[in-house]
């Protein structure tokens, strides 16, 4: 469902080669950790997947869409097939929990009826039905991240990308967030998690792709954070 073929990314303004000749394949329904220290190329890899950056060369195919060939007009429609979760949650502060979810659906043209049916359902999946009408700043960090996950689920994406989703959270809350992501994965959605969190990676025994110096240095089917890597 996701393929990188000889992908290289050089940033125009700085001439820095962020990624060099990346080849990568992720199957539908996989759960993948993307690890690597800051500046290794992890963020660039994610930005290429979300079409925030354009590859300098090579091809990226996601859900049968050639992301490298997308016109800027087509990008919004492509992004609707993805669900994004960020370290800093990125919720709209002036909208309630359910409005945040509804907003994501409104943006892609869902009808009010569809929203009324689906929004409470996805909130239920992250255990936040009781807090539907709270504002984000009335929630804990873990709860805010769950709202973000619900929002990512709202449009029924087949790929969820979480960029350091536990970066701002306590370890036990982090575990909880990962459980939700794992559950989503179990229902068939592909999940990619970029993280620094050694404990989580080691505990979950999922596929681990390690990036360093712009290249993939390790790709283990059931991996952990190796001890000789200092990320």
């Amino acid at each position, binding site marked *: 469902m996701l393929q990188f073929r000889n992908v290289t990314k050089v940033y125009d303004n700085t001439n820095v080669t962020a990624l060099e000749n990346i080849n990568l394949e992720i199957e539908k329904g996989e759960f993948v950790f993307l690890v690597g220290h800051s500046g290794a190329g992890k963020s660039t890899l994610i930005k290429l997947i979300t079409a*925030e950056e354009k590859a300098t060369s090579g091809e990226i195919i996601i859900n049968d869409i050639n992301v490298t060939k997308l016109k*800027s007009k087509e990008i919004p429609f492509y*992004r609707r097939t993805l669900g994004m979760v960020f370290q800093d949650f*990125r919720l709209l502060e*002036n909208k309630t929990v359910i409005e945040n979810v509804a*907003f994501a659906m409104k*943006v*892609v043209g869902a009808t009010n009826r569809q929203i009324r049916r689906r929004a409470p359902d996805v909130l239920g999946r992250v255990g936040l039905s009781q807090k539907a009408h709270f504002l984000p700043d009335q929630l804990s960090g873990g709860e805010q991240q769950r709202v973000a996950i619900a929002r990512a689920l709202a449009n029924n994406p087949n790929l969820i990308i979480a960029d350091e989703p536990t970066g701002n959270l306590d370890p036990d809350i982090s575990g909880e967030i990962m459980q939700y992501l794992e559950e989503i994965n179990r229902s068939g959605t592909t999940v990619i998690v970029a993280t620094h969190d050694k404990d989580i990676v080691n505990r979950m025994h999922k596929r681990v792709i390690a990036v360093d110096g712009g290249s993939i240095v390790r790709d283990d089917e059931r991996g952990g954070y190796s001890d000789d890597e200092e990320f």
Partner: protein
Amino acid sequence: MKNFSYFFKEGVMNLFTNKMVTLMTLLTVIVSLLVTGVFQVVSSNLMHISREVGNNFEFNIYIKDSVPAEQLNAVGEKIMGVAMVNDVVLKPKADTFTEFKDKVANDSLLKGLSEEENPFRDCFIVTLTNLDQADYVLGEIKLLEEVDSVSNNLETSKKLSAIEKKVKLYSIIIYVLLAILCLSIISNIINLSIFSRRKQINIMKYVGATNGFVKAPFIIEGVLVGMVGALLSSAILSYLYSLLYSNFSQVLEGVYLLPPIPVFLELLVMNAAYGILIGGLGAAVAVNKHVKV
């Protein structure tokens, strides 16, 4: 269009959630429109006055002595028939003679002259609808066989019509410059307001909103501010103009300021058009910088 009610609601809500920014933008729009509005009122009055002065500008058409008094009316009709002649008034030579005698009072030279020896000629005083074309119109009049000569104030009339044209040209140039200046100020102010909401724009883009979807509420917001600003600034200017008009309406002999009602209407139309344009365009320009994620 199914999203219009959503865009409108968002736009209106944004106005109220960012009260300070809205107020600042509104004040800027009002000040900008006051500046262009004052200029508009002044320049339309200047154009009006120069046109009026032009329309009141008189040419003397002298008639040959051989034309008998009974035929003068017919000659007047002929002159009136020439294109772009506004008005024709006969000034018989007897009147000119009397006037002259009154002026020079006891000059011995004229004492002996009787009506029959009147040295003056019959004359028509002519005003034109279009001073610009004086050359052509006077040329046409000269072709009439009864006409002896025309007054030689053509040069003055040309200067006057040149001034009229310049007033018009400079008015348009200054108005456009002012408009561009205001547009850039408004765009910067709106840019500030959008900058404070770039996180929201960013989130919208990540969940797959099209640029149009992101922009629409901002543009509606800008248009609304522009419209309110237009109404308020038109009201302020109209009030001030009516004060001015009631105290000082006559500029020159026979030349008046434009009456208030048409001025109000022109202000309202121009301000509304311009306010909506700068509000909407300013927002569009400003939001464009932020939608590229």
